[in-house]
């Protein structure tokens, strides 16, 4: 996101919540972008495009590429969603957009 033009200073008539929302949304897009890049790296590049060279490496009884395609990618996907949940929870409270607690809203 470094190449995007600098955001203009918030105009006086715009309520402060608005610019905070914009910063939250920007942070959200960066988190999603980075996590999807890892998702593509593991799910497509390692498990599909590079599977043949990776199969030359062994992980115990598994050829590495085969293991990533049949096992490892799934573990990474689960981890990515968990990281997303935790990071967004932090962003929610940092930018004061988190939900107020109410009955039955447990995880």
């Amino acid at each position, binding site marked *: 996101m470094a190449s995007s033009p600098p955001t203009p200073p918030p105009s006086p008539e715009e309520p402060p919540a608005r610019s905070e929302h914009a910063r*939250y949304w920007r942070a959200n897009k960066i988190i999603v972008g980075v996590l999807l890049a890892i998702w593509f790296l593991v799910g497509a590049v390692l498990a599909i495009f590079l599977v043949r060279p990776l199969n030359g490496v062994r992980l115990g009884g598994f050829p590495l590429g085969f293991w990533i395609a049949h096992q490892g990618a799934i573990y990474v996907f689960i981890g990515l969603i968990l990281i997303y949940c935790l990071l967004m929870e932090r962003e929610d409270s940092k930018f004061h957009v988190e939900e107020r607690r109410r009955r039955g809203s447990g995880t």
Partner: protein
Amino acid sequence: MTIPQWTYLIVGLTFGLYLTIAFFSQARDTKGFYIAGHHVPAFFNGMATGADWMSAASFISMAGLISFMGYDGAVYLIGWTGGYVLLALLLAPYLRKYGKFTVPDFVGDRYYSSAARLVAVVCAIFVSFTYIAGQMRGVGVVFSRFLGVQVNVGVIVGIVIVFAYAALGGMRAITWTQVAQYLVLIAAYLIPAAAISMKLTGVPIPQLGFGSKLVEGPHAGTYLLEAIDALHRDLGLPEYTAAYTPGKKSMLDVFAIAAALMVGTAGLPHVLIRFYTVPTVRSARFSAFWALVFIGLLYTTAPAVATFARVNLIQTLNGRAYAAAPEWFKNWEATGLIRFQDKDGDGAIAIRATNDPANELTVDQDIMVLANPEIARLPAWVVALVAAGGLAAALSTAAGLLLVISSSISHDLVKRVLLPDMTERQELNLARVAAGVAVVVAGYFGIHPPGFVSQVVAFAFGLAASSFFPVLVLGIFSKRTTKEGAIAGMLSGLTFTAAYIIYFKYVAPAAGPEAWWFGISPEGIGIVGMAINFAVTIGVSHLTPPPPAPIQETVEAIRYPRGSEI
């Protein structure tokens, strides 16, 4: 007790359990009927999503398919799990914040257009019907294989059970029965898998077992995967773990199929609506996490089951005299799932590649899971549990699909377009009737399967990928996306994908991979349809006037969690 007695007992008990749960969680209003009143906690929604998502095909057929495909089976493993990352990061939290009832609801409101709503309704109904016919058939097939009753009788039992809880109880009842069904199906999958892993490798965890050394048979002491590769070489088959060798899929096709299944997963209405049922945006995110944990438990076990079944099949049958074949072989031969043809007349079984004229053994993929407990010599109650697990997988998916069809008709079509003045009570009754009619139609297709049932999975995923996914993502991430853009995008993605699949599956089924565009099979073409949809939607949106201000405000509002606590 015999196997059929155990099966009647366990299947009867689980059906009783589902009906009891449904009885105590009936929906009393449309909000309860469509989205369980936003009362489902994330952990349980994850479990319900797992059962909703894992169909008869995941439970019964997938391990067998992988067993034949080797590395190529990755398209299902990656495709059907990776989609949850897209769901979690791009759709689930925002759809929950938006907070209405159905997917066409979102499309129609966001794109301020009844035309867009109707296109979405047609897609949702078509995708769900293609899918549900397979589930009802799956119920019938499990009944016939384990209990010896006719497939049709099994389908009718399935209709009655699903009708009883889906049509009367709505999403509330469906959710809690799905939780119970998840527990039944995962136990039925893991117990035989662990036992076979233990028997072959001495490691009870299948995920580790298939990377371990064999402890029995002529290859004892070598790694299981090395043994399979060696067995395959001896039989003239491509190595199990190898990729892109002759006889396997091309790299581009593996990528296209995996990508189409991922994006299709993220566009399937019966999965998307599960994220409406939780109380908060936060719990929608965690739902996606729990869902993939629960799905991953089965999906990481399946490739292990596939290798165990493969090595078992070759080691115990190849070269063996037919007269000396093990007992499970004789049992399953009666069902027609496994067939021996003594072509060279030597009385011994020869396994070769399927298209090799010397091959004497025809194996249906389903047998790999269904016969597992007998191959591992597990007690009769485990065999019965596998039957109950297959039924749980089929029924839970059928119920979720039924709700999509019912709500598309009663809510999106009638309430939102035709009769907006309908009362709450009338809408609820109409939803029940629509669910009832839909289950009967699905049952009809289950009894009289159209010839194309096995091929429609490509259709369902291709259409979900090329119609819903792009307009949902752009509807959230780009305020500038207009109704003209969305409608043009959905129609062009859909038309392209449907035309490609229809041409290569029905018009010219003999045209092989040489005729496919860039070598992409009909199963993978949805990803190209998705790209076309994205391009058209973005292009047309920039040529048409921006959406009205209130719509842009709505898009702004769904991006922030606060305020979901209506």
